[in-house]
């Protein structure tokens, strides 16, 4: 065994990528259908409708719903960051460590922002 091997830290990012990919595969089409089709097609006025301010706040009143919302956005971000990084490499864009840190850094920033924002949501 003449080749020297060093353990990769890829599993950490791969697990986040996989979790995001799984969640996206399970429900993302349905979520996009909701925001892009069901909500716009449902009659709405200033104080009624599926995306009415008070209604959405009521939906996300519980800690569980808030955590799920932040987790969903964060996992999508980690999934996308991991694949975009590899896509850049595949297309011959060799950004080195800088590209790697900006991809995963963006995902981490999105996660922190999403986590902070759900805490800051006002009560309905």
């Amino acid at each position, binding site marked *: *065994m*003449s*080749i020297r*091997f*060093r*353990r*990769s*830290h*890829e*599993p*950490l990012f*791969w*697990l986040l990528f996989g979790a995001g990919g799984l969640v996206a595969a399970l429900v993302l089409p349905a979520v996009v259908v909701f925001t892009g089709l069901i909500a716009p097609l449902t009659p709405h006025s200033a104080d009624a409708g599926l995306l009415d301010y008070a209604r959405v706040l009521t939906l996300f009143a519980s800690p569980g719903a808030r955590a799920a919302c932040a987790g969903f956005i964060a996992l999508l971000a980690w999934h996308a960051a991991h694949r975009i990084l*590899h896509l850049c*490499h*595949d297309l011959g864009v060799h950004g080195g460590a800088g590209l790697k840190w900006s991809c995963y850094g963006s995902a981490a920033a999105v996660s922190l922002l999403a986590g902070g924002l759900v805490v800051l949501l006002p009560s309905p």
Partner: protein
Amino acid sequence: MTDGDAIRLDVLRWHPDRPAAPWWQSYEVPYRADSTLLEALQTIKDALDGTLTFRWSCRMAICGSCGCMVNGRPELSCHLLLRDLAPGPVRLEPLAHFPVIRDLVIDQQDFLEKLPAVGAYLVPAADAEAAPDTPSRQTPAQMAEYYQYAQCINCLLCYSACPQYGLKPDFLGPAALALMARHDADSRDTGGSARKAARDAESGVWDCTLVGHCTEVCPQGVDPARAINRNKTASARDYVFDLLMPGRRR
């Protein structure tokens, strides 16, 4: 189709005495209903152009010598009938992602160095080693666990199908990693822990992005994409356990 038909082969050629650039050369080759592409190459070599160089041995898709790119796809030239490639022309190139020594002959050195690195041999249990004449029994179900991976003939078509190997030459690659999985999955083997260093490396399973073309081109029905990606799961599991329980025995 009648005997006496001919097909045009366009071959990408390179010669070390003419190193600047490869060139295309066309041959019009007569063929019969049962002629293979390899036989067409042999016809060229014997009757049309003795300088054309290619590897071959068994003529029946088991030695793994005659791989080349056929119309852009890695194939065994003995495994293709010319009648299926008619009317042509057929584009022949050396296997992708390997250094070319001459014409269709590629340098396999890189693979031959990687093969021992994945521990692609059976490591019997100590008691089995101590009693070499005792049979190591295995049920058909246990054999079925690895049998598909054991069909690899080292023809390297999967390396030519893998853009990640082309982009990252250090990548151990589909066949070597499938043979790693083949021995890990064998109930008689105890060498799994020694293979983990190669598995867990960047150039191990982690250079793979599951393009999946390796499995599609394998002439033996081996599934390297499955071998590698199941080992990603196993490698990730060990990574997490080692993180949570430093110093645990692997």
